[in-house]
């Protein structure tokens, strides 16, 4: 029961994170929400996990839960990568503004000479 409550708390934290991500990266948000919901179902209804695991050839329900965690981790990693890309875009805009302002100033100074 303690493990179930802990996992539920963590999965709820992931759901919260996914809802914050949704605006910037809807696909990632959707995948994270779907995986976290799947995780919640498996935590509270382990028999479903076992049945689904048998269906897809994994064998044990607990392995399926482990795989779900791996999938969630990979999605979070991808999301982190996308956030870094978004940061890079902001840095690019800033660097571009600075570069163009400098060049424009130099060009004007040259024309005034």
């Amino acid at each position, binding site marked *: 029961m303690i493990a179930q409550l802990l996992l539920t708390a963590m999965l709820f934290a992931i759901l919260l994170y996914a809802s914050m991500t949704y605006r910037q990266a809807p696909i990632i948000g959707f995948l994270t929400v779907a995986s976290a919901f799947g995780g919640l179902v498996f935590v509270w209804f382990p028999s479903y996990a076992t049945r689904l695991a048998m269906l897809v050839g994994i064998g044990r329900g607990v392995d399926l839960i482990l795989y779900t965690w791996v999938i969630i981790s990979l999605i979070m990693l991808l999301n982190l990568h996308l956030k870094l890309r978004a940061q890079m875009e902001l840095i690019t805009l800033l660097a571009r503004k600075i*570069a163009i302002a400098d060049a424009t100033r130099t060009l004007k100074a040259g024309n005034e000479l």
Partner: protein
Amino acid sequence: MALPATSDVWVVMGAYNEAKVIADVVADVKSTGHRVVVVDDGSRDDTAQRAQAADAIVIKHPINLGQGAALQTAIDFVLAQGADFIVTFDADGQHRAADIAALLAALKSRKADFALGSRFLGSTVNMPPQRRLLLTAAVWFTRLTTGLRISDSHNGLRAMTRRGASAIHLRQNRMAHASEILHQIAASDLAYVETPVTIHYSAYSMAKGQTLFDALLIILDLFARRLHR
């Protein structure tokens, strides 16, 4: 049909560590009478000084951002300066300045907003067979993803009108920008033409060229870009 006045045309190039060749490339383009803008993309050598000495207008990125970012910086700058026609040109000496006139003539005579250089309609010098194979695959990929009927998808020599350039907003900083431009041309619904040009492969330009691994990274970059806003 008369070509645009040389004062209306700005030739732009992104350059990263091109000190060996940039002065010759700028001088070649300047001989056509057009204004030249070089975006020094955070080079560690004296690319900027040499381009400036060759009478180019130099914009310096404070850090290395990539060729796509450099081209967008150049486009933003020359649009702000009132450019009517913009030509993008590679800084590694692969292109011939003499081809610029044909691109500009194509814009005028075909009433297009983009004239895209094509080495496969024109000619190549010293192109290795593996490069031809890679570029052919890239053309098919681009045709499938953009719907554009083009013969050369990764040619840095292109001309565009002011209206065309205003429709380009590159967010792919690195090599995927060539595909991104084509996607944006397709999305803009503006007219485009292809024009034969000559690409000259040298040991220097080949060392800076793209490999199969780069092509895979480009596909990943294009895919990742679609995952976030």
